[in-house]
C-alpha cells in the first residue's frame, strides 16, 4: 500500500486534488482512499490531505503518519512546517518550486524533486500571478513521481472534476508530468 | 351507557399500530356538563340563526318550521345562545335531573 501526503494552503484545492488523484488511480485498477486533514479549513492556513493506493483491500481507516510520498503545493510552506515529517526512508518529496532540488536544502533518506508548477499553471491561464491555481498541475508531477496514476486517466479525471477550464487544467498536469524525470 | 359511537377496544390487538383515531367525539355526551339549559320560545323568534352560529357545541339545528332546536345530548349549557339572541327568546333555566 502506498500512502501519499499533500501539503497546501486552505483554498488551494489540495483536498479535491487528492480525490481526483485517487479517482485516476482507481480507474487504473487500484483500490483507493482519499481524505483531507480532518478539521476546519481556512483560506491561507496550512492544510494537508492524503491518499492511500493499494492493490488489495484498504482496511486502514485512520490517519497517515508515515507517507511514502509527499507533494508540496507551495514552497513557502516549507519554512513553517516540517513537510518531511514521518516520510518513509527511501520516499520522495516533490515541491512546487522554481529552484533545483539541491537548492531546497532538504536532508534525509528520501529523494527530492522540484517542478515550477506556478509558472506552468499561469502559462495555462490558471489563476493569476498572485494566486495561481496549482493543484491540478501538481497532480501531474505526483503521477510521475509516485507512478500510481496513468497520466491519460489523470487528465480525464481532471477534466471531469474541474469547475472550469477543463483542458487547461489537464494540460498543466501533463506539463509537470513531462517536466519531471525520476 | 355508551352510545353508538363507542368503539369497544378490549386489548392490544384492537388498537391500531399508529396512534390513529378511529371514531368521532359524538361518543362524548357533553350534555351531562350542564347546570342550566336553554329553553327557546318561538313566539318572538325571528329565525335569524344567531344562536346556531354562535353555539360552541354545534348543538343547535332547525326544526321543520325553521325554528332553532337544542340538542340536549351535547349542549353544555354555556348560555351563549341566550346572551346573543337579539330577541331575548332563549332563557337559561336550571337543569333538573
Amino acid at each position, binding site marked *: 500500500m502506498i500512502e501519499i501526503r499533500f501539503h497546501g494552503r486552505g483554498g488551494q484545492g489540495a*483536498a479535491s486534488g*487528492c*480525490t481526483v488523484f*485517487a*479517482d485516476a488511480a*482507481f480507474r487504473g485498477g487500484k*483500490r*483507493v*482512499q*482519499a*481524505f*483531507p486533514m*480532518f*478539521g*476546519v479549513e481556512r483560506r491561507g492556513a496550512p492544510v494537508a490531505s492524503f491518499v492511500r493506493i493499494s492493490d488489495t483491500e*484498504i*482496511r*486502514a*481507516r*485512520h*490517519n497517515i*503518519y508515515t507517507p511514502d510520498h509527499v507533494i508540496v503545493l507551495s514552497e513557502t510552506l516549507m519554512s513553517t512546517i516540517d513537510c518531511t515529517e514521518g516520510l518513509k526512508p527511501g520516499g520522495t518529496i516533490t515541491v512546487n518550486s522554481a529552484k533545483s532540488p539541491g537548492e531546497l536544502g532538504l536532508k534525509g533518506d528520501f529523494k527530492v524533486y522540484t517542478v515550477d508548477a506556478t509558472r506552468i499553471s499561469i502559462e495555462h491561464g490558471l489563476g493569476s500571478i498572485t494566486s495561481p491555481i496549482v493543484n491540478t498541475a501538481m497532480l501531474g508531477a505526483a503521477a510521475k513521481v509516485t507512478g500510481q496514476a496513468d497520466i491519460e486517466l489523470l487528465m480525464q479525471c481532471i477534466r471531469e472534476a474541474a469547475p472550469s477550464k477543463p483542458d487547461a487544467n489537464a494540460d498543466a498536469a501533463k506539463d509537470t508530468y513531462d517536466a519531471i524525470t525520476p | 351507557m355508551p352510545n353508538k359511537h363507542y368503539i369497544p*377496544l378490549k*386489548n*392490544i390487538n384492537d*388498537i*391500531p*399500530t*399508529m*396512534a*390513529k*383515531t*378511529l371514531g368521532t367525539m359524538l361518543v362524548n355526551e357533553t350534555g351531562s356538563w350542564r347546570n342550566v339549559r336553554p329553553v327557546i320560545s318561538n313566539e318572538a323568534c325571528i329565525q335569524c340563526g344567531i344562536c346556531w352560529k354562535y353555539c360552541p357545541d354545534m348543538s343547535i339545528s332547525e326544526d321543520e318550521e325553521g325554528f332553532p332546536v337544542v340538542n340536549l345530548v351535547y349542549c353544555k349549557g354555556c348560555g351563549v345562545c341566550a346572551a346573543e339572541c337579539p330577541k331575548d327568546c332563549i332563557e337559561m333555566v336550571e337543569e333538573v335531573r
Partner: protein
Amino acid sequence: MKKVLTGNHAVSYGSMLARAEVVAAYPITPQTQIVEKISELCADGVMDAKFIKVESEHSAMAACIGASAAGARAFTATSAQGLALMDEMLHWAAHARLPVVLANINRSMAPPWTIWTDQNDTISRRDTGWIQYYCESNQEVTDSVIQAFKVAEQVELPAMLVLDSFYLSHTSEPVDLADIALVDKYLPKYQAKHDLDPAKGHPAYGALCNDEWYYELQIKMQWAMEKALDVIIAEDALFGEMFGRSYPVVEGYRADDAEYLVFVSSTIASTAKDAVDRARAEGIKAGSAKVRLLRPFPKPQIRKIAKGKKRLGVIDRNISYGSEGAFYTEIKSCLYHELQRPEIHGFIAGLGGRDVTVDAVYEMIKITAGRSPETDINWQGAKLA
C-alpha cells in the same frame, strides 16, 4: 457503476437511489456536503424530490414527519448538535410510527466545540425508538440508506444510519452505485398504510391518550423493534442476492476459531481487521466482530459469536457517563443468561476523533488476550498521568 465518492456523497446518492420524495434538512459540519449534493441532484432533475430548506434541524424532522404522514418517503441528514436539537421530534417520528430515514454523521457533542467523531450523539438517542445502523464503509452507507427505507416502511419505525465524521464523511473511496431500476425492484414506491389524504377518510394522529392505551402502544413499538431485527436480516439477504453485497448484523472476522474476540463498530471495525491479522501473526488467536446495529440490538447473534471464547473485548467510541461504553453494556447484558460467560474487557477509544490506529486496536487485543479485566473501563490512548 463505481464512482469515487465521499461518505457524504454516498449518503446523497443513496437517498437518490432510494427515491426519497421529500428531503428536509439544515446544514451542519460535517454533513453539509450531503445537502449540497442533494440540492444539486434535485436542481439538475436527476432526483425527483421536494427539498425543504428548513431553518433548523428541529423543523427538518418536523417537516419529514409531516411529509411521511402525508404518505411520502422522507429523508434528512444531520450531525451532533443537530441531532440533539431534533431529539423531541425523533421521539415523535417513532411514536407516530413514521418510516423517516435519517443519516447522522457521528460527531462529538459540544462544548468544547468539536467536529470530530465519536458516537455520543447517537448513543444518547438510543431510546427514541429509532433503528440505528452503524456503517463501516461508504459502500455500506449508500446501501444502508436503501435498506433502511425498506425495513423502516415494513415495521413502521424510523431508521437512522450512522457514519463517522471525517473517517467516512469526508473520505473518498470507490462506491458501487446500484442500477436504479434494480433498486426500484428491491424498494418499490412507498405505500403508506394510512395517510393524511382527506379523500381516504378523516384520521387523527397522536390524539391525547391516557393510561388506558398508551402502555399498549409502547408494547407495539417494542414488538416492531423485535420484528425489525428479523426484517433487517431478511432484507439484507435479499439485498445480497440482488446486488451482491451483504452486511450481517454481527460480522465476524477470523472469529470462528478465535479464543479472544473484540467487538467493534463503524470504521474501527475496518481497522480492526488489520490488527487481528497482526495479532494472529504474533501468535494470538484473535478475531473481531463488527456490530452493525445498536437498535434493535442483535442479541442472538452476539450470543452465538461469543460462545466458547476465552475472553472478549468491546471497543466503544462513546461513553455513557457514570457507567461505561454503550456497546459494552449491551454486550454484557445479553450474555448474562448464558451458562458460560466469558470475561469481558471494556475499552473506550477515539473520543472526539482521537485516531484509532491499527497499533491501538492491536494493543486492546493484547490486553484482552493477556489478562482478566479489573475495571469496566480501559481508557485507550488517553493522556493519563
